[in-house]
């Protein structure tokens, strides 16, 4: 039993819904009580979908439990097939149905429905949404492709066979799905990018694919595992069964996109792309080198997201924007190893957790100037008075923008530069404020409109009552907070307001560590010296 207040991921059957709803011609019969129909709103409200997810719920009630719930399952399956005439049917159960063991998958298999039926077993009490999505995509493809799997021992297809076959090389884009972060736009960006290099897209799945498209998966020369959370198991299976090589580089950021193109060209035996492509096609490299961006140097950034976006963000932040990554973590336990490795490279220990309070605590302790996270971190950052940009699911409706805003490829890098730098103060602006801050016209509370989300006051305001009461015992509560002396306060007042919060926090930490009861001007400067080392 585990106490959960807010969760990063839904149950695994919601992952299955994401696959079904992303596709065409697939229907999902879910043995579940009525309340579980809430999941429809994730698609119709957050994604603003204009059609209901293709899901039929049995909505069994307590009074059905004494009777024949298996009959209800069969009736629901038959009605769904008659009404929606899917090309493939997924059958599964949610947490409650798992306990009553009606085996809806076997029931469906015995009904002679005349459509491929894929029975989903998604353990609701140990697995979560992304795992469910990955498992569903894998099971569905495996179910549809099993007749095509070549006998063991047959030679693997050569990824350069396109040349002999007198056609262009072609790849599958695997993993983009509804409720994933900016998948729709990433697909468009990659189609353009690959097209520019003469590479064709064979199948995109699950987003927009029909079962008939999945039957064409083995025709690709390379599989692009774009979102490992969703496509990882499928890509591995396709590699094992059909010998299709997998490119696991995720093209988010300049370096990663360059690497992605280079590796893909190598796999396909194409001539390597021009090294200047990044500079020509994306503004991020120049914007980051331009003088205004000097002010971004060493900005402290805290990153928490799904593994795909956390790893990408850490690389962009540290190498391409000159930020200092002060925290890196993920809720994707399945990919914890990869995130740990990325953190280690930055001299950090990765935070692997699905407890948003633990993440919030780590965030507070890291004293970042920018948070890159999910909707959960956006809320935590708001409480701590920190600017934040959302980089990963779980999403809210505002994370599905009307405009084209990919994360992948060259345009993705532009979008990332704008959205991450936007919450920070721009260099020129910061410089002017510094110059004029002694002027009487200068209003202390003035904040850049860019620093939205940051509080008007300099010190992070603790959430009244609730949070203070609840968080206090967590950090032991034993050490009394050091008190600011008058000259200490005065010295603090001379520090520009936009760094004052950080200085206050650092000084207090320093004083506490040193066991000091009062913070004088001297202590402040000692602390300053300590932290600038």
């Amino acid at each position, binding site marked *: 039993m585990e106490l959960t207040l807010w969760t990063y991921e839904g149950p695994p059957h919601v992952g299955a819904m994401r696959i079904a709803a992303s596709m065409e011609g697939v229907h999902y019969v879910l043995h579940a009580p009525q309340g579980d*129909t809430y999941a429809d709103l994730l698609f119709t409200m957050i994604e603003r979908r204009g059609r209901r997810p293709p899901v039929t719920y049995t909505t069994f009630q307590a009074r059905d439990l004494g009777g024949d719930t298996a009959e209800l399952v069969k009736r629901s399956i038959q009605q769904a097939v008659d009404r929606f005439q899917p090309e493939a049917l997924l059958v599964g159960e949610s947490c409650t149905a798992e306990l009553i063991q009606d085996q809806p998958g076997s029931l469906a298999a015995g009904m002679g429905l005349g459509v491929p039926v894929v029975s989903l077993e998604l353990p609701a009490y140990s697995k979560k949404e992304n795992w469910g999505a990955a498992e569903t995509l894998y099971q569905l493809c495996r179910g549809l492709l099993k007749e095509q799997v070549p006998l063991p021992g047959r030679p693997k297809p050569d990824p350069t066979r396109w040349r002999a076959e007198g056609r262009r090389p072609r790849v599958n884009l695997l993993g983009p799905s509804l409720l994933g972060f900016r998948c729709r736009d990433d697909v468009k960006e990659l189609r353009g990018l690959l097209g520019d290099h003469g590479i064709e897209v064979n199948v995109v799945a699950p987003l927009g694919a029909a079962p008939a498209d999945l039957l064409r998966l083995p025709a690709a020369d390379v599989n692009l595992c774009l979102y490992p959370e969703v496509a990882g198991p499928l890509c591995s299976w396709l590699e094992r069964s059909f010998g299709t090589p997998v490119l696991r580089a995720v093209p988010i950021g300049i370096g990663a996109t360059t690497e992605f193109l280079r590796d893909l060209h190598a796999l396909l035996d194409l001539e390597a792309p021009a090294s200047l492509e990044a500079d020509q096609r994306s503004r991020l490299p120049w914007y980051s080198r331009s003088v205004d961006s000097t002010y971004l140097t060493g900005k402290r950034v805290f990153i928490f997201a799904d593994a795909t976006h956390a790893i990408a963000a850490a690389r962009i932040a540290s190498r391409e924007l000159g930020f200092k990554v002060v925290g890196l973590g993920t809720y994707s336990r399945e990919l914890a190893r990869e995130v740990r490795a990325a953190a280690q490279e930055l001299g950090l220990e990765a935070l692997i957790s699905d407890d948003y309070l633990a993440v919030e605590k780590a965030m507070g302790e890291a004293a970042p100037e920018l948070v890159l996270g999910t909707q959960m971190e956006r809320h935590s950052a708001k409480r701590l008075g920190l600017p934040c940009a959302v980089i990963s699911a779980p999403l809210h409706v505002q994370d599905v923008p009307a405009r084209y805003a990919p994360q992948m490829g060259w345009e993705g890098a532009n979008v990332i530069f704008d959205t991450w730098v936007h919450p920070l103060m721009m260099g020129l602006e910061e410089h002017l404020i510094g110059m004029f801050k002694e002027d009487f016209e200068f209003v202390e509370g003035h904040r850049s409109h860019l620093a939205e989300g940051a509080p008007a006051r300099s010190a992070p305001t603790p959430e009244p009552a609730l949070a203070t009461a609840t968080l206090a015992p967590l950090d032991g509560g034993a050490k009394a907070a050091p008190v600011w002396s008058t000259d200490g306060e005065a010295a603090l007042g001379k520090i520009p307001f936009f760094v004052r919060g950080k200085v206050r926090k650092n000084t207090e930490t320093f004083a506490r560590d040193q066991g000091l009861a009062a913070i004088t001007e001297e202590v402040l400067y000692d602390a300053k010296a300590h932290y600038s080392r």
Partner: protein
Amino acid sequence: MAATPTLPPLIKESGQREVFCGLTSIVWLHRRMPDAFFLVVGSRTCAHLIQSAAGVMIFAEPRFGTAILGERDLAGLADANDELDRVVGDLLGRRPEIRTLFLVGSCPSEVIKLDLAKAAERLSQRMVGRVRVVNYSGSGIETTFTQGEDAALTALVPMLPASDAPQLLLVGTLADGVEERFLTLFERLGIGPVRSLPPRQSTELPPVGPGTRLLLAQPFLSDTVRALERRGARRIASPYPLGVEGSLAWMAAAAAAFDIDPIQLALVMDPLVERGRRALEPLRRQLEGKRLFLLPDSQLEIPLARFLHRECGMELVEVGTPYLDRQLMTEELALLPPGTQLSEGQDVERQLERVRASRPDLVVCGLGLANPLEAEGIATKWSIELVFSPIHGCDQAADLAELFARPLHRRELLQWN
């Protein structure tokens, strides 16, 4: 049971339902009682449902959470009771301000027959004087949406102190501002003392007994009423306080029960009624003649249909309700126009076929259905807003009508050429 001979036979359906479960009511109950915590014992689905229903209200540390059952709990490796004690201990250690802990049952806890009532008793004894632990079930196999509040309040009834003294007890969560307004009006009428269930502080439970008259602020409290009646309270039969007419009838029923002079009632209410009707006028012009289809969701459908027809002139195509408690709806049903088609339960696909066939001007429905219907060209109003907004009383009648007029108005505003 009052007969409603003017209504055609009820459509009763038992297919796929598209309704939240009773856990959803935690979203407003926890705000009503800031010293209470709602701990669902359930699955990740339950946690995800509440989070999704709460939507953008994600702020600070919420006063509700889910003790998620794991494989160890199901396999019996971990004694569920020990685990629950541990979780509750941790939680209350972190939240010393909590005075009442609701242990809320879910489908999984019901199916594995976890005895939360006994657990509540045990925990209550252990924490006597500090925290009261109350159990109810909000499971989707037993409750729909607003029925969760009914179950929560029913669980509180045995804890209410006994008193024979005359009093008026308002039953059902009202927005704080609306409640205050009602209290002022009752005072002007000379009715008192007036108390509320749920109270604003979970520790200040109202007394109940033979002197208690019940006035229902919400129509979905069947079990609560029965439990209160067993403790001697008597219900004041009345329409619900939605719209000017309903609110006036509601106040009048209370006044009659307390032998208030009708002149006094008129003195207090006439100006409000007059003002409320005036405020409704422009909205009536927008809604008049428009055809309304209500899908079953919040259990407020019947009183809303009555208001929107009688005071706003809308035509009722179909009025769906998750379940029909004829006793609590007698006065409302009597006010529906002859020929109103009621439906109970749901078979969502067939009901949507009826929606498409009848081409209504406005459909009241849940969040899962709203955008898909809009995409088909049918205007919608989300029902969940009705349980979160202050809609009760004469003063709110125009606001309530505006909720339905807005989607129609918006369609008129938008132009693409």
